[in-house]
């Protein structure tokens, strides 16, 4: 008797959210099966990859592979234009690390000007990441959402403390997409989606950032949170967890020991760049296998590789 596997497609599906405008607009989510389970049903949209660009520009891109790729770029705008040509890139993520009041404390005006300049120069969808300081991010997101009205950007992200302001401005006033950020906590993830929709933000305009960790650094919590969210969204058809998930990966992975230690300090470990790339790849592949619908990465080689992996699995 020939073996025929049972199918496991669900009636519920993940919301499809479109980012950006024009030809380069990109859709995430939409599937009614577990990650890469194309044998259960066709997967509506392949997971997407964003290129992380910090507002500090070239000074933060010290790895030889990064230097080679961005060779000749002087400004973040130059880098953004170059990043659009990167193999595997679907969107750009502007990461305003420099806005942090405890760091470079760049003014909101300066950040808005940069976002505007990049937006004018590129055609790919844009995602905005803040500096993790609640007050500053709230103001930053409001102003950038306003300045980039009509571009259908995603602000990443509103949190428990500021979802009302960010949701009202980015989500309602300027009709952008809004990220809902929780820190590896499924109950909070659902709660944020619930209160944000109660506020009037259309559920179809919300993307979740459920938090992450580098492989080996408490990643089990990330894995189980992803598993449980997909389970609730598809099997229990929980409409408050059906938002697609976007996970910033490179901001975690390039900060851990394996990626930070120089080859001089750890000769037996070999090339630092290679370690950083493999850490970025391992973590990105894991969050995608767990159900993230988009990842934000940094190194051109990691982006190329993850794009190849997605192609091979879809």
């Amino acid at each position, binding site marked *: 008797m020939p073996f025929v596997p049972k199918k496991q497609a669900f009636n519920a599906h993940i919301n499809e959210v479109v980012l950006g405008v024009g030809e380069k607009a990109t859709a995430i989510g939409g599937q009614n099966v577990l990650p890469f389970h194309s044998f259960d049903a066709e997967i509506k949209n392949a997971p997407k990859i964003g290129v992380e660009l910090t507002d500090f520009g070239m000074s933060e891109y010290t790895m030889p592979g990064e230097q080679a790729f961005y060779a000749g770029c002087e400004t973040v705008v130059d880098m953004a234009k170059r990043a659009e040509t990167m193999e595997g890139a679907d969107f750009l993520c502007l990461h305003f690390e420099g806005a942090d009041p405890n760091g470079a404390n760049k003014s909101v005006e300066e950040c808005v000007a940069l976002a505007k300049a990049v937006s004018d120069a590129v055609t790919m969808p844009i995602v905005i990441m803040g500096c993790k300081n609640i007050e500053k991010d709230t103001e930053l997101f409001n102003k950038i959402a306003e300045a980039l009205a009509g571009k259908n950007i995603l602000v990443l992200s509103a949190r428990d403390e500021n979802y009302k302001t960010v949701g009202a401005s980015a989500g309602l006033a300027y009709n952008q997409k809004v990220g809902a950020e929780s820190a590896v906590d499924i109950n909070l993830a659902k709660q944020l989606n619930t209160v944000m929709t109660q506020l009037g933000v259309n559920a179809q305009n919300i993307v979740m950032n459920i938090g992450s960790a580098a*492989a080996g650094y408490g990643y089990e919590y990330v894995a189980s949170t992803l598993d449980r969210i997909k389970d609730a969204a598809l099997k229990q058809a929980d409409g408050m967890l059906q938002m697609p998930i976007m996970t910033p990966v490179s901001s975690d992975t390039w900060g851990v020991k394996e990626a930070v230690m120089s080859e001089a300090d750890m000769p037996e470990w070999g090339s630092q760049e290679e370690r950083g790339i493999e850490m970025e790849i391992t973590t990105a592949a894991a969050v995608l296998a767990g159900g993230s619908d988009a990842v934000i990465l940094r190194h051109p080689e990691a982006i190329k590789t993850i794009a190849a992996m997605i192609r091979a699995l879809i």
Partner: protein
Amino acid sequence: MAVKGLDIFKLSPKKNCKECGSPTCMAFCMKVAQGAIEITKCPYMSEEAIALLSEATAPPMKTITVGEHKLGGETVMMRHEKTLVNRNLFAATLCTCMDDAKVEERIEGIKKVDYERIGEREMVECVFVHDAGDSAKFVELCKKAAAIGDRTVIIDTKDVDTAKAAVEAIKDNKPILNGANKDNFAAMNEIATAAGIVLGVHGADLSELHDIVAELEKAGNKNLILDVTAETIKETFANAVLVRRTAIKDGDRTFGYPSIVNLGVLCDHNEHLETALASVFVLKYGSIIVMDKIGYAEALPLYGLRQNIFTDPQKPMKVAPGIYPINGATPDDPCALTVDFALTYFLVSGELERSKVPINLLITDASGMSVLTAWAAGKFSSTSVKKFFDEFDLANKINNRTLIIPGKVAVMKGEIQDKLPEWNVVVGTREAVELVKYLKDGEYKAAAEAAAASKKPAEAKKTVDADAPLDFEKIAASIPAIKIRADLDAHYKQRDPESPKFVTIGERIHCISPVIREAMATFNPDPILERAAQQIKAGATYLDVNIGPAESNGPELMTWAVKLLQENFNNVPLALDTANKKAIEAGIKVYNRTNGKPIVNSADAGSRISYIDLAAANDAICVALCSADGIAKDNEERMMHCHHMLERGLSLGMEATDLWFDPLFLVVKGMQDKQMDVLNAIKLFADEGLKSTGGLSNNSNGAPKNVRPIMDSALVAMAMMQGLTSAIVNPNDLRLMETIKSCDIFKNNELYSDSYLDV
């Protein structure tokens, strides 16, 4: 997977002959399903039914031994459902297509990756030797692979004669023979069975694989591994998922074997793509992941990921206790102390590294709990720190005498300083992220000098002998006079200790509350009496008295607290709650039993099991936590702990009803899917006639204030239905107390009257 009584009934003879001893076939089948009676007691049961039952009780996935490792044995698809039990293994490849230099390079590479991470050895566990068509060379290559030592060789050949020669040549290695396919499986089976080794099976597709496995099982071989590698990456992933899902969710045991995935052939030397896919297969059902080569760049993230995924979700990851020099620290550098919870370790060590300040990180055994939790549970105390310093001989191994302790346990500073008089104890930061600034600013240096200067001149230390019998008279004489407050208007009503009514244990006198902690530190009776009065008015049956670790004055403090409460409130019965056993002993000595025996809070089946002995010796009730090291993973484990403690209590002459079993109520936020397990455990206790209790309101920890009483009330009603006989609660929660009183009415523990809520 449990088989239902009705499924068995459908296959039963349905003749109601009663020969099995049951009145009807239906009744018999129900008992069989519960495991209460053997199916063979029925002389007329069909073979089909017997087969169904043995199939249903067999594990869904077999456990296979590879070298020193176990593979398979999984019962769930996702780790949060229970746990994944056997971590996957990694293999690097050798091939007859490689020249000698390349082979040597590979072998050196395999040997090089060998390190320890959080107490586990991380290495390339298997060597995958591929036959590209040169039989003699292949056998030589297998020998070289086996000669590396400690690694299981995977013999990858489809040629029967080559396989035979290779297995013969390295049979001591106990290799895996990965070679059975539809054409050769009978011959390969013979070789593998004769050598007693695992046989790898490959099919052109899942249907063919299924057929071959069925044939091999029929021939008696169940020591198999399934090579799910297909032509494409996409199909390989599908195979890995479907094989696992078919076994675990659809109950088809033919696919109940571990898998092997060969990424080397799928990725065509794209090493980065191999890493990406290896990560996917660690999560999704690769048991042996074969890569072309594995260096540190691949091993560090992949092994870290594997270690994370294959941890029990209910057991914390622990780091081995010891001295961890950071940034090239020497014995002349200062020490920073923390607990062995892996996440704490990573956070703290990461920040210490970032500071670039050489420092010795000291990790103490705190059962894998975080700093505050460990402190509250008595696992991180001045005694445990002292023990750690003695065990690891810190005095001789470290010359510097500065000891930085976590800011969160600043309260321990004095006690640690007393126990380690040679050291200068300094309170560090509350959070790890503040460490970089703290160390760079060098604040701790001044603090250490201050600590050194303020130390009392070497007065002859009172040597406290922990095992010395207590001098009760001396204790009684040393405590302050008992203050009586007549103004509190709380009268504890005489109680029949035999009453079947639900017992509430008021939890509000707890040293984790700053007000109470302060009151206990200064022997100030008023805050304690006020909280007691409030709880008694609200209808608490017992009051819990938690005096914290109380290492220095436990017996005095508990004696005082017991007398204070009982003399003020008509001998209100008490639960004595502390990690200091001498304190409990002293408290019981002055305890009045009119309204009920004292409760010892609490024993567990692990390091606190001797609290049962304490309760037995003092004719007390004992709260018995059904856990040993961390939360029990299922009710089988809970019941094992329960019976272990029950036996101990009975052997010491206790009444079974004096052990109140605590299933450990779990937080809904985080462990929602385990709530029914806890409720079912209560039923299991009740079915055996045992009493139960627990910190019920833990379920709603972290929930909004207005929601908690609703959740707690619903849970107590469900739990009382299951047979819960007591709970440790906040009696000031009116909704909860009214729910409990109502449940007592329904359970017929109390006769109904219109004003039952006021009684």
